[in-house]
C-alpha cells in the first residue's frame, strides 16, 4: 500500500485534483459563481494539468537542472521498490515506457469500445429507448476521441518499444522527453473523462459554431485533446532523432527494419500536423472564454464600427482537417509497417521491394498533407478546392497500391505458416482492402455528396481503422509478446480470438456500409423504421458485442500468459531483426555492448542461425 501511494500515477492524479481544486477556489475568489462557466473551467483544467506534471515527477529532472544537478537519468529498476513499481511511475527506460503506452492503449480502446456498445444497443432498433439525445451525442464524441487517443498511444507503444531495439540503440535519443510524452497523456485523458460527465454535443470533431455554444464539457474536451497532442509531437521528435541519430554502426538507412521507416513517415506527420488540431482547439477555447470570434460569423456593434470582418466557421474545418486527415495516416502507417515487418518472417522470404515499401510510406505521408479538403466537400468550400482535393485524394491510392502489391509479392511462393500473428496480418490485409476500396466513392465529389453524412462513411473508416491499426496492433502484440514478457501467449485462445473477431467485424463493417446506402444517417440517435435498416442495425449491434467478447478473450490471454505461459525462446519466430538476437525478455540495456550490424534485414531463406551482428571492437564515436 505504501508503495502504491508513491507511484507516479497516484501522486500525479492527486496533484491534478489539487490543481483543479485550486483553480476552482481562485476562480471563486475572483468572483466566479459557477465553476462550470467557461473561464473558471478552463483555468482549473490548465492548473490541473500543471498539478499532474509537478506531482507525478515527470518534470523533476528538468527542474533539477535549474539547481545545477545534471546527473544522468537513472538506469534500471529503482532501489527499494517492488518490481511492478516502475511501470506505474516515471521511468526512462524505453521498454518500460513502451509497455506503459501499450497497456494504456488497450485500456483506452476498451473504454471507448464499451461506450460504443451502449449507443450501439440504443441504435439496434428504431425509436429512442434509453439514451437522451444529448447523452447519445456526448457518447459518440467520446467514443471517437478516446479511440483516437487509444490508437495514438498504441502507435507510440510499438514505436517506443521497437524503434530503439531495431536500430541497435540502448534507448531513445531523449529518454526524459520520452517519459514526459507518455505521462502528459494521463492528465489529458482525465480531462476528456471529465468532459464525458459535463457533456458536449459536437462529436469528436468539435466543429464551431456548435462547439462554442454547446455544454461546458467542450472545455475539458478541447483542452484534454490539446494536451494529448503534446505527446504526439514530442514523441515524433524523439523517434525521428532516434532513427537518424542513434543507429548502431553498420545500421545504414536501408538496413533499418521496415517498421522504422513507417515510423519515420508517421512521425513527420505527427510532428507537424498535430500543431494544427491543437491550434484549432485552443482557438475555440479562446472564443468561448474571451469571446474572440475566430469562427462565429456574428459581429458585435463595436466590431461593426471598426469595420472588422466576421469570423469564419470554415476556417476551423481547414485547420482541423489539416491535422485530422493526415492523422489517419499516423494511425495506419505504423500498422502497414507491422504488416510489412511480419509477412517476410511468416513467408520465409525477403520483403518484396524493400525500398519501394519504405518510399511508399513517405509518399503516403507527404501526399496526405494535401488531401484534407475531402472532408469538406459538402461544407460549401469552393469548387476549385473540391476538385483539387479530389485528385490528390485519389492519388493516395497509388503508394497504397504499391504496398499491397509488395505484400502479395512477398507472400507469393513463400512457405507460409499461420500462427496467430500471421492470421491477424492476413485479416488486416483483407479488411484494409475493403476499407481502401470503399474510399474512392467518398474521395470523389459527385458520389461523396450523397454518401457524406451516411453510415457508409462509418463503415468505411471503421474498416480502415481495423485493417490499418487494430488488426496489425493485435498482430504486433502477439508477435512481440514473447520478446516483451519472456513467455508465450496461448495459441488456442489466440486463434479463438481471431475466428470470433473477424467474421464479426465483416458483419459490422459491411452492415454499416449497406445501412448507409439505404439512407441511414450518421451521428443520430433515432431513425425512420421505413428505411428498412432495423435488421441491419440489430446485426451490427450483435457483431459489435461479439468483437468486444473476443477482445475480452484477448485481454485474458495477455494477463494469464504473462504468469502462466510457456517460457519463450529468444527467437521463437526465427526472425533476423536485431531485437530477436538478444534474450527474452530484453535485458535492461538492450545490447550487452554497442553492436555492429552486418546483415540485411530480410534475407530469409538462407542458412540459419543468422549472423546479424559482428562481434568486433566496440563502436567508437563516428
Amino acid at each position: 500500500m505504501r508503495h502504491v501511494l508513491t507511484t507516479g500515477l497516484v501522486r500525479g492524479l492527486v496533484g491534478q485534483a489539487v490543481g483543479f481544486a485550486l483553480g476552482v477556489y481562485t476562480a471563486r475568489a475572483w468572483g466566479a459563481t459557477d465553476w462550470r462557466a467557461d473561464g473558471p473551467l478552463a483555468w482549473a483544467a490548465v492548473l490541473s494539468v500543471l498539478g499532474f506534471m509537478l506531482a507525478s515527477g515527470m518534470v523533476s529532472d528538468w527542474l533539477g537542472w535549474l539547481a545545477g544537478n545534471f546527473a544522468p537519468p537513472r538506469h534500471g529498476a529503482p532501489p527499494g521498490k517492488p518490481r511492478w513499481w516502475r511501470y506505474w511511475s516515471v521511468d526512462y527506460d524505453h521498454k518500460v515506457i513502451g509497455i506503459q503506452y501499450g497497456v494504456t492503449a488497450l485500456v483506452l480502446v476498451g473504454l471507448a469500445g464499451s461506450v460504443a456498445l451502449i449507443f450501439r444497443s440504443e441504435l439496434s432498433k428504431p425509436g429512442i429507448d434509453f439514451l437522451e439525445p444529448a447523452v447519445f451525442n456526448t457518447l459518440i464524441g467520446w467514443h471517437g476521441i478516446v479511440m483516437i487517443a487509444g490508437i495514438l498511444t498504441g502507435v507510440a507503444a510499438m514505436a517506443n518499444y521497437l524503434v530503439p531495439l531495431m536500430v541497435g540503440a540502448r534507448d531513445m535519443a531523449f529518454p526524459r522527453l520520452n517519459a514526459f510524452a507518455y505521462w502528459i497523456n494521463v492528465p489529458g485523458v482525465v480531462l476528456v473523462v471529465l468532459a464525458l460527465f459535463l457533456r458536449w454535443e459536437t462529436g469528436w470533431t468539435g466543429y464551431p459554431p456548435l462547439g462554442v455554444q454547446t455544454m461546458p464539457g467542450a472545455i475539458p474536451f478541447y483542452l484534454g485533446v490539446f494536451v494529448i497532442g503534446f505527446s504526439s509531437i514530442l514523441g515524433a521528435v524523439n523517434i525521428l532523432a532516434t532513427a537518424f541519430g542513434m543507429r548502431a554502426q553498420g545500421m545504414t538507412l536501408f538496413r533499418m527494419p521496415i517498421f522504422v521507416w513507417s515510423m519515420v513517415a508517421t512521425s513527420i506527420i505527427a510532428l507537424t500536423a498535430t500543431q494544427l488540431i491543437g491550434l484549432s482547439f485552443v482557438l475555440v477555447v479562446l472564443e468561448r472564454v474571451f469571446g474572440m470570434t475566430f469562427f462565429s460569423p456574428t459581429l458585435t456593434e463595436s466590431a461593426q464600427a471598426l469595420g472588422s470582418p466576421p469570423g469564419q466557421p470554415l476556417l476551423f474545418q481547414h485547420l482541423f482537417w489539416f491535422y485530422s486527415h493526415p492523422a489517419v495516416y499516423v494511425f495506419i502507417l505504423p500498422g502497414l509497417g507491422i504488416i510489412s515487418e511480419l509477412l517476410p518472417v511468416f513467408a520465409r522470404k525477403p520483403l518484396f521491394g524493400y525500398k519501394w515499401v519504405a518510399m511508399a510510406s513517405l509518399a503516403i505521408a507527404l501526399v496526405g498533407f494535401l488531401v484534407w479538403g475531402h472532408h469538406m466537400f459538402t461544407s460549401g468550400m469552393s469548387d476549385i478546392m473540391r476538385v483539387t482535393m479530389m485528385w490528390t485524394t485519389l492519388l493516395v491510392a497509388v503508394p497504397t497500391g504499391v504496398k499491397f502489391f509488395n505484400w502479395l509479392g512477398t507472400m507469393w511462393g513463400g512457405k507460409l505458416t499461420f500462427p496467430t500473428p500471421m492470421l491477424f496480418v492476413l485479416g488486416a490485409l483483407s479488411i484494409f482492402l475493403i476499407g481502401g476500396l470503399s474510399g474512392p466513392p467518398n474521395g470523389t465529389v459527385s458520389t461523396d455528396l450523397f454518401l457524406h453524412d451516411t453510415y457508409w462513411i462509418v463503415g468505411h473508416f471503421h474498416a480502415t481503422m481495423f485493417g490499418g491499426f487494430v488488426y496489425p496492433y493485435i498482430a504486433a502484440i502477439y508477435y512481440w509478446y514473447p520478446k516483451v514478457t519472456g513467455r508465450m501467449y496461448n495459441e488456442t485462445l489466440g486463434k479463438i480470438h481471431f475466428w470470433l473477431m473477424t467474421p464479426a467485424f465483416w458483419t459490422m463493417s459491411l452492415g454499416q456500409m449497406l445501412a448507409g446506402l439505404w439512407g441511414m444517417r450518421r451521428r443520430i440517435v433515432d431513425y425512420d423504421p421505413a428505411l428498412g435498416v432495423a435488421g441491419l442495425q440489430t446485426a451490427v449491434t450483435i457483431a459489435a458485442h461479439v468483437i468486444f467478447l473476443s477482445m475480452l478473450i484477448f485481454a485474458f490471454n495477455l494477463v494469464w500468459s504473462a504468469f502462466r505461459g510457456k517460457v519463450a525462446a529468444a527467437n521463437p519466430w526465427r526472425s533476423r531483426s536485431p531485437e530477436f538476437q538478444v534474450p527474452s525478455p530484453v535485458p535492461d540495456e538492450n545490447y550487452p555492448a554497442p553492436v555492429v550490424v552486418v546483415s540485411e534485414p530480410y534475407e530469409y531463406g538462407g542458412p540459419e542461425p543468422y549472423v546479424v551482428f559482428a562481434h568486433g571492437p566496440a563502436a567508437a564515436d563516428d
Partner: protein
Amino acid sequence: MAVLHSVHEHDLPYARRERVNRWGLWLFLISESFMFAGLLAARFYLWGGTRPPLDQTLGLLLTSILLVSSFFMNRAEVAIAHDDRPEFLRSAMLTVVLGTAFLVGVVGWEWGLFLPDGPHLRPTDGAFGAVVYGLTGFHAFHVLTGVLAILAVWHLGRRGHFSARQHWGVEAVAVYWHFVDLVWVFFYPALYLIGQVVAAGH
C-alpha cells in the same frame, strides 16, 4: 559542471550527444512553425487585404526591441563560446530586459492594460480583435517562456556552468530565442503592415 557523466559504455560522447540534441531542437521548432503558420493562415483567411488601425509607432518599436534582443542573445552565445563569461552574463541579462520590455509593450499598450481608457481594439471585436489578440498572445507566451529559459542559463552561467567546449544549454536557448524573433519577423508585417486600413464606422 554541465558535463554528461559517462556511466555506461553506450553513452554518447558530448559532440555526438550535442548533435542529436540539435536535431531534436530543430525538429521541435519545425513543429512550432506549423502552429505559427496556422495562425498566419488564419490571419489571411479572415482579414484578406484589410487590417485594423494599429499603433504604427508601437509596432515598429516592438519589432526593434526584439531584433536588438536577438543581437544580444547572439552576443551572449559568442561570448560563452570564447569563455568570456562576464560578457555572456551581461548580454544574456540585456536580452532578458529587452524581452521583458517587449512583453510589457504588448500587454501594457497593445492590449491596453496600461491605457486609462482601455485598448482601442478589444478581443471581442470580430476577426480583427480575435486575430490581433490571438497572434500576439501565442507569440507573447513564447517570448515569456524564452525569457524564463534565458534566466535559467544566466543563473547557471553565474554559478560557473558552461564553457567554450560545452555550452549546448546556451546554444539551445539562443536558437529558441531567435526562433521567437523569427516568428515576429512574419507576424509584424502580417498584423501591422500588409493590407489596407479599414476606414472606421460604416
